[in-house]
């Protein structure tokens, strides 16, 4: 739905001026930004507030902060970091990690977050999705789904920062979280994450056909063509970390490439 019609021959099923979003992801641990390959080796990459401002200037449409360590060791994410980010950004951002209860959710929103991202807690206490959607609206809740293609080819859901396999079935889980009121799904293909081998476009294409909710593709961005492939496959947004943090591409460069390939993209023009 984000490909501009240049031929005039094809009529889209639904009109939409919505742009595909580019979302840098900042994995945070102890107030610093980290990014690992397959979630394992963490490498410090900088100050969250500085990075956030830099990405806004580069043209990022949104940011996501994930405290991936929090769900492993139970550490609370730093609320003052969220507060500092909120005071310095004029684009939306989501936070996740360390959310254990509705009380924690209140704290994150109060600190200035626009959205919360739930992963482990969504699986363990799915009624949290309903509670957040009812109180803050569906737009405020992103459910992060870490899916791994197992050796036998089946799709398995993982929690706790990708370290524990959940019993819930992939298709059932997605249907359930949409039903409970999740506004967006952050879909991480663990078998692609950090490998630089592109997004799982087949998974993305299937997703759009099955579930009426926005999907953010995550895991596997290696170059501009991976972003294009994900959006063409049906992603509403693409999330990436290392490719931006390592300075291989700026958000602006990715966007220019996508605009050149007829994708509807926000060009902040500054």
């Amino acid at each position: 739905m984000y490909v501009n019609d240049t031929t005039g021959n094809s009529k889209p099923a639904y009109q939409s001026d919505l742009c595909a979003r580019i979302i840098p992801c900042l994995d945070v641990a102890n107030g610093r930004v980290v990014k690992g390959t397959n979630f394992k080796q963490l490498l410090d990459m900088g100050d969250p507030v500085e990075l956030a401002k830099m990405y806004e200037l580069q043209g990022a449409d949104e940011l996501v902060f994930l405290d991936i360590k929090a769900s492993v060791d139970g550490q609370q994410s730093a609320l003052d970091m969220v507060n500092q980010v909120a005071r310095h950004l004029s684009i939306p951002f989501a936070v996740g990690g360390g959310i254990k209860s509705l009380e924690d959710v209140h704290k994150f929103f109060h600190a200035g977050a626009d959205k919360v991202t739930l992963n482990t807690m969504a699986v363990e206490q799915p009624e949290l999705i309903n509670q957040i959607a009812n109180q803050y609206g569906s737009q405020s809740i992103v459910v992060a789904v870490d899916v791994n293609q197992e050796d036998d080819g089946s799709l398995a859901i993982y929690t706790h920062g990708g370290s524990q396999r959940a019993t819930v079935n992939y298709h059932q889980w997605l249907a359930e979280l949409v039903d409970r009121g999740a506004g967006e799904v952050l879909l991480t293909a663990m078998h692609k994450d950090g490998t630089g081998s592109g997004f799982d476009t087949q998974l993305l294409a299937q997703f759009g056909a099955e579930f009426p909710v926005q999907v953010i593709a995550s895991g596997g961005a290696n170059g501009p063509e991976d972003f294009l492939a994900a959006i063409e496959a049906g992603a509403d947004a693409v999330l990436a970390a290392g490719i931006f943090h390592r300075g291989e591409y700026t958000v602006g460069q990715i966007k220019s490439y996508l605009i050149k390939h007829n994708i509807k993209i926000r060009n902040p023009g500054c």
Partner: protein
Amino acid sequence: MNINGAKVAVIDLNSGNLLSLQTAIQAAGGQLTTVQQPSADLFTECDVLVMPGQGRFAYVMQQIDDSGWRTFLLEWVRNGKRLVGICVGMQVLFEGSEEDPEAVGLGLFKGHCKKLSHPKTPMVGWAKLQSYKLSMQDQFAYFVNSYAIAECPFGTAKVNYGGSFCAAVQRGNLYGFQFHPEKSGQFGRELIKYVCQ
């Protein structure tokens, strides 16, 4: 009027986080206060009232009625004072919404909100505004909504999502933005500066 002198009050309807909006108003040079309850003093002590709203239409209307804002806001607008409604804060300026048909809006504009006719709701993200106003023309704004006003003679900007809807309305000093200026990057900051002067 010097923008540095504009006194801006944000109405806290206990409906979503106000920090970004407050920060943006301060960054625009506005003298910021946050108010829960209406008071006659506002007429002398405040130039601009900003009413953000998130969540259900009925919830926001309930908050407005419980704190006694309804009569105050109608009086405020009748006196030509500036009011800026954002997101559901814009929707409640109208008569009602399909979301909660029993809830009665402020009725400052004619019309009712309808559910967006696109399979993916809420609409989340950025869209380019179609507007005749130079301040908004071809700018990208950040939206998060499932309902909207399809048409209004006072519409100043439009976008498409399953159909065309009003992204902004204005009649004199009464402004409504369906998108979130406080989340719309540099463009949004400029817009806040503009309405807060």
